[in-house]
């Protein structure tokens, strides 16, 4: 027993000096270079970020020379960007930086990450069962529209959430029927779903709400005020009063993790995604599992959309999801088809959106240019991680019984 434990300990120590770990250290140092210049540190000595940057570059180079090409490149990029950004930030007033980097940024990050996290969790369920869900974007959009539509009709946001889930589930059921029963290419079906949602929501939006748009007095998803959490230092203002949906997605991520990895149901679902024939042999209905997985993914994505329309923004616009479903999909890959990993990806993209939004007010950078930030970051994250990220074995392939 103890021998095994020691061996494991040794293994852990050895891993710290591996090129990969050094490369990751380089990335962290590169980010640190930038962070030093920001509140609450606001170091105004140019040597500090430059020193951190050089250390990051050295670590990156070291990793690069030892065949950790990708991590090494990342560290080098982080070093260059981190140092440059730090020197830029040092040239600015502390007060204007505080406007950007504050507890408000945490709140914005969470707000932007939440719809993504709903859709990403849905994507994980669908893909773990072996069905690629490119249609997340459309299901989110349907959730956004039918969420506000039902909330207006039912005069309560709970009706809105139910309406969103019904719409997302229906759209997902179409996706499921075409990709499972009719064995159409799942990516083509997903694309069709996206267009369908765009057309249907646009048509109904113009037909029902005409030029006036959605009513402004719609019942919104409330903020949940938790008295005890208000007193937490620094974060208290954010987590003490957060949207109900943010709490919901945190709970759902944990529940999703437990279902997928700690229950027989989850094992069945994953087996269908990894080796459907084997699952079928032991009596698991591949079709039933896939239907349930895809439909629940549509419902989850629709909840994310509903949070946009009746939680975050308070109105609906044509194509208001602007690619968020695809960013969620990237977060799934980023997080290696694991709920917590995907949540980390969503936080990263949420952070870049939040940063872009807050920088618009403070810095003289074009809002449009900043809007590209989440998409550029998604690309970089994909390039950096996809090689290490292995999808479920049977994803994208229709199952033919017999």
């Amino acid at each position, binding site marked *: 027993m103890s021998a095994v434990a020691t061996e494991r300990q040794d293994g852990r120590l050895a891993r710290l000096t591996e090129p990969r770990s050094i490369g990751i250290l380089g990335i962290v140092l590169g980010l640190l270079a930038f962070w030093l210049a920001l509140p609450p540190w606001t170091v105004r000595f140019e040597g500090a970020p430059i020193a951190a940057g050089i250390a990051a570059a050295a670590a990156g180079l070291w990793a690069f020379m030892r065949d950790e090409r990708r991590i090494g490149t990342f560290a080098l990029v982080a070093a260059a960007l981190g140092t440059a950004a730090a020197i830029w930030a040092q040239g600015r007033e502390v007060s204007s930086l505080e406007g950007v980097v504050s507890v408000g940024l945490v709140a914005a990050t969470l707000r932007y990450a939440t719809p993504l996290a709903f859709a990403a969790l849905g994507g994980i369920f669908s893909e773990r069962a072996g069905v690629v869900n490119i249609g997340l974007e459309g299901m989110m959009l349907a959730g956004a529209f039918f969420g506000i539509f039902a909330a207006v009709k039912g005069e309560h946001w709970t009706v809105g959430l139910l309406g969103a889930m019904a719409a997302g589930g229906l759209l997902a059921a179409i996706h499921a029927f075409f990709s499972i029963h009719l064995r159409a290419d799942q990516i083509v079906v997903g694309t069709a779903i996206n267009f369908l949602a765009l057309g249907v929501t646009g048509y109904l939006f113009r037909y029902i709400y005409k030029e006036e748009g959605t009513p402004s007095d719609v019942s919104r998803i409330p903020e949940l005020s938790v008295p005890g959490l208000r007193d937490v230092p620094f974060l208290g203002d954010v987590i003490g009063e957060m949207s109900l949906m943010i709490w919901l997605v945190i709970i759902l991520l944990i529940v999703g993790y437990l279902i997928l990895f700690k229950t027989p149901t989850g094992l069945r679902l994953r087996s269908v995604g990894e080796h459907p024939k084997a699952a079928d042999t032991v009596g698991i209905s591949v079709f039933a599992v896939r239907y349930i997985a895809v439909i629940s993914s549509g419902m989850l994505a629709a909840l994310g959309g509903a949070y946009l329309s009746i939680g975050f923004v308070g109105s609906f616009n044509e194509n208001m999801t602007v690619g968020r479903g695809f960013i969620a*999909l990237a977060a799934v890959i980023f997080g290696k088809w694991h709920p917590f990993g995907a949540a980390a990806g969503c936080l990263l993209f949420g952070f870049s959106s939040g940063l872009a939004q807050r920088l618009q007010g403070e810095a003289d950078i074009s809002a449009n240019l900043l809007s590209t930030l989440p998409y550029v970051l998604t690309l970089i994250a994909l390039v950096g991680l996809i090689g290490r990220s292995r999808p479920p074995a049977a994803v*994208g392939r229709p199952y033919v019984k017999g």
Partner: protein
Amino acid sequence: MSTDEGSEHERPDPPEGGVPGGPGTNRSDAPTGGGPGGGGGGERLARWFSGRIGGFLVPAAAAFLAFLVGGVVVLATGHNPLGAYKAIFEGTGLNVASYFSEDSRQSAWGDLQQTLIVFTPLVLGAIAVAFAFRCGMFNIGGQGQYLVGLFAALYVGVNFDGLAAPLHILLASVAAVAAGAIWGGIAGFLKAAVGAHEVITTIMLNWIAVFGGQYLFELGGPLQGANPSVPRSETVVESAQLPEFPGSTGLQPLHIGVLVAVSALAVYYVILNRTTLGYGVRAVGFNPEAARYGGIPVGRNYFLALAISGAFAGLGGAMDVLGWKFTVATNDIQVSDVGFIGIAVALLGRNKAVGIFFAALLFAALRTGTSTRQLDAETFPPELAGNLSTMIQALIILFVGAELLIVYIWGARRRFRPAGPVRIQPGLKQ
């Protein structure tokens, strides 16, 4: 199309290498084309559907079904679907009857010019999708590639005043082709180098092109025109504007870009079917593992296929800005959807040159017929019609990808007798 293509198209859906399962997923449980209805009869019918006649029938049936469902939506929202479709058709200039009457000939020709102006970028956008498709990839980035091409052509077309007309046009088009190729090539490179899925990378590149473009022409943006209060580019100078098509009239005359588009279809056919490059692209699309084994560089073909796709889309952007729009405003950029319609065109046209021609004509007609200028708001409100055509496109993509559905409906309509005495396991459950 040529005979040797027929055999390759037993399964005209995109090859399975294009999904995140990674290349070479043609394993045991890949679909074999067994139809419902059971037995050999269904099998034979399914094969027949994806064969020569089916190559036309399935898209036609898909389009018919899509219009049918669209009609139901129109009906459900209190409009007459037949009236709406007729009004849309009248606005396309494709009604041959109107050319026989002296009064309607002029306006019909004007409508037809408009349809053909829209047809041009749709053909090029569809080739961008189709070319990548034949290499086993799904290029959703036609929109971004079209936009960067448009920006590049616009930049050259606005500057370099004083160049001779044909040279200036050529230079602007080359810039657009290069920009599109780079934009597509980025996604191709990422797929080849690290295996990043092209669907996600091209979509990210689309949004980067949209917001990047809005940045270029916004107030105070680097390429904003002379009027400081309007977020709009400068206008393309005379020498870079495409010549008008002979006999064209009206405020928005047809430009010769339509000939470029048709020639591009021929180029597409030749590259794909008559060159080594095309052979490699098709081999990779058919089965990347086998292609690799046969010594074809798979990664290089991924890169080339997406770069060439991007080049076609970029050329589409050039044709639009040099022949029709001449300028771009920030709010034109986000609403532009040529590249997206290109996906539907390519799928409906089955990635074949002739198919793309007819599919592009259909979608261009749909676009023109549903435009605010053409459609009488009394019969059917144009703002609804635009979304209706998006819906119809979606349904066409959905139905055309699911041949089994057509076989299903066909089978339900007319029972065919089983071919053999033994009913083997049906291809589908239930």
